[in-house]
């Protein structure tokens, strides 16, 4: 029997949800586990950095990294894992585009540390110098995985949904690998798999989810909720719209949409109406758009580090 592929799973600045998401495979997880050898997975098995250091280069078949890169230690670890792995997979929204923790980039590192220390979260170095177990240094900005190392594949989602995780393991275990940079989700927009019907194709009010119990059949955008469905990849089965919540974009934008925030600005610019268009409606249209609280945080909830930071062109 051929040797089982060696798999590693690592977490950086994440919430732990990605590690737990594997359980959602249900009994299929047993099949997967029977066919792989887990060589490193801090959330699950007692394995340490020293173990990884002892591995031969490229001896791990695939490493699945979840979490935002937030500390210097995160960066060291992913470089180490890259060297030891044939394939590296960005697993989940944080590793893919920075994720929710990436919103921290709206504040400076100093502001964040100040906030942490004044709340007593951050241990100050004791007299006599740094403690050996002092927390690793915080990076100036949170980064996505691809900001540091080459990423072969992406399993998106916050956390990734079982069907998408299934696609990854199907590919890894069959050896039938997709082209580099493949994102295990659909290329078409979420709206295409959403069961809600689009009617007006205009947005005549903006409401936040807690302000409305939406009609169960009608498109949420038509009802005034800022749903990212038009610019986000399908693949999750429209989980949120089915449950009456607007899509906040965790699977990431379609290849067509590109930058999700700019694509949403473009879409909303077309959809907003406050009565008949023209100078008489300008003030009311602006007021309507003002009801969209924190557009930046809404549009880039999972992707701020990937799109908003530097002059770097982002093609992801």
């Amino acid at each position, binding site marked *: 029997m051929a040797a089982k592929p060696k798999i590693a799973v690592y977490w950086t600045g994440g919430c732990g949800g990605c590690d737990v998401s594997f359980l959602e495979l249900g009994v299929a997880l047993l099949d997967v586990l029977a066919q792989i050898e887990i060589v490193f997975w801090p959330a699950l098995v007692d394995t340490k950095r020293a173990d990884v250091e002892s591995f031969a280069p490229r001896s791990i078949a695939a490493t699945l990294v979840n979490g935002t890169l937030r500390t210097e230690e995160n960066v060291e670890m992913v470089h180490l894992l890259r060297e030891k792995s044939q394939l590296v997979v960005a697993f989940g929204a944080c590793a893919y585009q920075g994720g929710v923790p990436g919103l921290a980039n709206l504040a400076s590192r100093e*502001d964040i540390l100040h906030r942490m220390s004044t709340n007593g979260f951050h241990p100050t170095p004791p007299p006599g110098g740094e403690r050996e177990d002092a927390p690793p240094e915080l990076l100036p900005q949170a980064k996505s995985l691809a900001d540091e190392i080459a990423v072969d594949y992406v399993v998106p989602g916050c956390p990734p949904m079982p069907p998408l995780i299934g696609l990854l393991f199907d590919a890894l275990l069959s050896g039938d690998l997709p082209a580099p940079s493949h994102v295990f989700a659909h290329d078409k927009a979420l709206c295409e798999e959403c069961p809600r019907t689009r009617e007006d194709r205009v947005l005549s009010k903006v409401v936040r989810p807690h302000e409305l119990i939406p009609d169960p059949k009608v498109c949420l955008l038509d009802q005034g909720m800022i749903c990212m469905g038009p610019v986000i990849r399908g693949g999750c089965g429209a989980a949120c719209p089915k449950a009456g919540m607007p899509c906040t974009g965790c699977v990431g934008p379609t290849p067509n949409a590109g930058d999700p925030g700019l694509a949403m600005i473009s879409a909303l610019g077309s959809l907003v109406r406050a009565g008949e*268009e023209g100078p008489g409606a300008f003030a009311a249209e602006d007021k309507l758009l003002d009801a969209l609280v924190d557009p930046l945080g809404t549009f880039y909830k999972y992707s701020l580090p990937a799109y908003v930071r530097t002059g770097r062109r982002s093609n992801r």
Partner: protein
Amino acid sequence: MAEAPFEPKIVAFLCRWCAGAGADLAGTSRIAYPSNAVPIRVNCSGRVEPEWVMEAFRSGADGVLIGGCHPGDCHYVSGNYKTRRRVYLLRKVLAEMGIEPERVRLEWVSATEGAKYARVMKEFVAELKKLGPLSLERKEKEPTAAPVLPRVGS
């Protein structure tokens, strides 16, 4: 040697029917105005994607002017209304990013308003000179201009 004074770079997306024709008229009428803008002719201001504005910034522009027809005059009926709403939202997002929203300017210029085009350009250049060069690169050690997190206990 004294440093050359800052000359802002501007990308101007001008619709061909009104603002573009207005800019041409400013030229043919020999109205003097600053030459800081690279004009890009588009069919309608409604064609200008927010992505293009950001691309202009990433490519080194300090300001972006979008010129369209006056309300009611757009040759595609409502392209300029779409643009107005997009610019309104884009400017809010830019402000949240820490980019001065004044760097994106929307103006209605008709084909007969060569003088207005020249005035807009003069004003915009003056405003951008005050703002200084755009830096998309966030300085690492510098706290954000307006800290997003309220300082606890201060």
